[in-house]
């Protein structure tokens, strides 16, 4: 292979190379790392952030931002949990409520996510306020709503079928991992093989061009944020099931981790560029980093510093890559 072609390959798939190198390095550094158990553990750990980052990727490709994911996750989690408590638990939030099948809390979580996202999208599309502001407002309000709903208390002791979503296994694979992989696939199809997906790229790449080409920009914006909200709701369901409780303080700053994963995955904040594959690998890189540094016994404080540097480094490399083209 000639040098130019190699360079282009590295440019295009750079983040995947980084991931592979990280995995190789970690497996030499720690014998435990490469075990199937540990690897599944890594994916399970990133599944919540990963789910959020899928929606955030669509948002950022459209040149927007979503700061509300963590709070929306919390609202969805506490509402879902309140509908999914075991019948025999003494401190039920709704003592009268019979034990419901898991589909009810699940639908509740999804609906709440969808509504919060749609509100974000509608505000942005109809009033024209910046996405940063609209979702900042939602971030603060939704957190308040979660506290209000639970009166600041955790909602615990969930039914077995509810917990299964966070703790169960199918064929030895954790259910959260299956849900995450499934949503990766769904979102990939959405972004690459539907009109909606093309419109997202168009809106982020050049909103005026999208408008004059007859793309309904407003409706698509609402759909983008609604989808991001839906995924945050789903993440809330998964997280509450995993820890067997819905807490109003859940998911604080998760939106930032999700944005980090998306960004490491090569999605450009100037809009129009980004892939689901990138978001997936970006989340895995964060996961491998956490896991690996833990295995190596690096202190949590250092981990944060390293994580922060990697986020900035990823964007610097990305900018250079894009600058060279021009």
């Amino acid at each position, binding site marked *: 292979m000639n040098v130019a072609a190699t360079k282009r390959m590295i440019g295009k798939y750079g983040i995947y190379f980084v991931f592979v190198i990280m995995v190789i390095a970690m497996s030499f550094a720690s014998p435990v790392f490469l075990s199937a158990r540990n690897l599944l553990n890594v994916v399970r750990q990133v599944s919540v952030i990963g789910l959020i980052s899928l929606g955030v990727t669509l948002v950022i490709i459209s040149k927007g931002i979503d700061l509300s994911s963590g709070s929306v996750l919390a609202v969805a989690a506490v509402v879902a949990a309140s509908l999914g408590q075991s019948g025999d638990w003494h401190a039920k939030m709704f003592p009268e409520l019979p034990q419901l099948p898991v589909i009810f809390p699940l639908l509740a979580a999804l609906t709440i996510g969808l509504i919060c996202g749609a509100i974000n999208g509608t505000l942005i599309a109809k009033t024209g306020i910046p996405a940063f502001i609209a979702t900042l407002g939602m971030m603060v309000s939704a957190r308040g709503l979660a506290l209000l709903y639970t009166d600041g208390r955790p909602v615990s002791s969930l039914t077995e079928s509810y917990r299964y979503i966070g703790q169960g296994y199918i064929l030895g694979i954790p259910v959260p991992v299956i849900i995450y992989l499934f949503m990766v696939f769904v979102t990939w199809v959405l972004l690459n093989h539907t009109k909606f997906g093309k419109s997202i*790229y168009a809106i982020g790449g050049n909103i005026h*061009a999208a408008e004059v080409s*007859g793309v*309904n920009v407003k409706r698509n914006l609402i759909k983008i944020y609604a989808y991001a909200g839906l995924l945050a709701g789903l993440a809330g369901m998964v997280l509450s099931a995993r820890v067997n409780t819905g807490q109003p303080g859940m998911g604080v700053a998760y939106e930032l981790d999700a944005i980090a994963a998306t960004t490491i995955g090569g999605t450009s904040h100037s809009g*129009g560029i980004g892939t689901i594959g990138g978001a997936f690998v970006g989340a895995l890189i964060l996961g491998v980093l956490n896991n690996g540094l833990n295995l190596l016994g690096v202190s949590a404080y250092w981990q944060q510093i390293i994580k922060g540097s990697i986020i900035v480094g990823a964007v610097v490399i990305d900018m250079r890559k894009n600058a060279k083209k021009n």
Partner: protein
Amino acid sequence: MAQQYILEMRDITKVFPGVKALDNVKLCVKPGTVHSLMGENGAGKSTLMKILIGIHPPTDGTIIYKGRKVTIENTNRALNMGISMIHQELSPILHRSIMENIWLGREPIRGPLGLINHRKMYDMTKLLLKDLELDLDPREKMGNLTVAKMQMIEIAKAVSYNSDIVIMDEPTSALTSREVEHLFKIIEELKNQGKAIIYISHKMDEIFRISDEITVLRDGQYIGSYPAEELDQNKLISLMVGRELNEMFPKVKCEVGEVRLEVKNLTVEGVFREVSFTVRRGEILGLAGLVGAGRTEVIETLFGIRNKTSGEVYIDGKKVDINSPKDAIKNKIALLTEDRRHTGIFPMLTVKDNTVIANINKYIKKNRLLNHRLIREDCEEYKRAMRVKTPSIEQKIQNLSGGNQQKVLIARWMLTDPDILILDEPTRGIDVGAKSEIHCLISKLARQGKSIIMVSSELPEILGMSDRVMVMYEGRMTGIVERGDCDQEIIMKYATGSMSCKGGNFNECGCN
């Protein structure tokens, strides 16, 4: 039936907050014709077209399309009705492919899930490009194309709607003359299919070459519609500006002094090579060539935006080393960039701020604060000298017309008191009235002893203004022609590479 109109826009009025952009305007278009819409910038052409394509709703008036009264709420509606538009501003989505750009918003779909049929999209694009004789891969990213090719894709896109009316707003501004011919062929083809074309351009020769009818607007008012053969250039211009225009190219003969700038064998690897020329005091050197010939790149290198691979630059006989715009400014070079919107104006700032921003150091008082009084005085002075039409220097520059914005930019550079002034397409997208004023200004500057390099794609401008013309073709300089020996034909011969000078000896130029 042949006289039946496909489109009648009657009594169209459009009021924006504080401005009446259109006042009872009329436009009637017959199928199978090219109908040109003429007027100075700000006359309301674009607004009228934006109403037709559904971007703005009209305040008042009726649109009759194919014999039926219609309302066009949005672009989608217009496109579905059979009206498409090539927009004046290039609007590609750079990171996506050609085919995704063309079929955006109407991608072919298959299956019950509504998934996109990429293969069909590819085939359709291939066919479309082949029809228009564009040899491009549908999967190529838009961002990798030249500006001219992007424009051709925009044209292909507008054609692909298979519309009955195609609006073309300045379609040739980024095209080379070969591609312009290509476009005219496409237009001819569309005409033969019975489609109507509404054509907007500032280039007079184009208008008279392809128009069947011409409608003139002035200051939002309807002036009249005329068969093209009833008008000539002078008549049309006087209809547009409402007065007889002063000379278009007020070239003043002035003393050409000693050599100020000398460029020797300037080369940027892979872009252009061995470019040598001199500019004297009080001289205007025109820089001609087709889009993509390397003209902008040469002056960008001269100004330190690009790094040269080899070659030397001398100012007043002294060798200078220019590696950044800062160095260039220090050596008293000023550059008026080609793209006013992106690299020129600060749209949100006032005329005043836009004027002084390159020379702000001059206004810092001893206490490190700005001397606002002096800033105001200077701005008022330049506003008068440049004849900038603005109610006040506190006006945001984005509210000024293109021509007046350009005058402010020239003022900005004049404040730095440059010896060498480089103008890249100084009158692009500027209407005729303001154009002649800017030409006046350039002449005046030359008379003051400035050395001027002017890049322009408009041959009449090059011929009318330059003392000498340097022509480039594909990164090489093919000739330097004196004013007296210059005509359109000779320049085109150099610019298309059919004639060039051998061995860098430009005294003995001849045909290859």
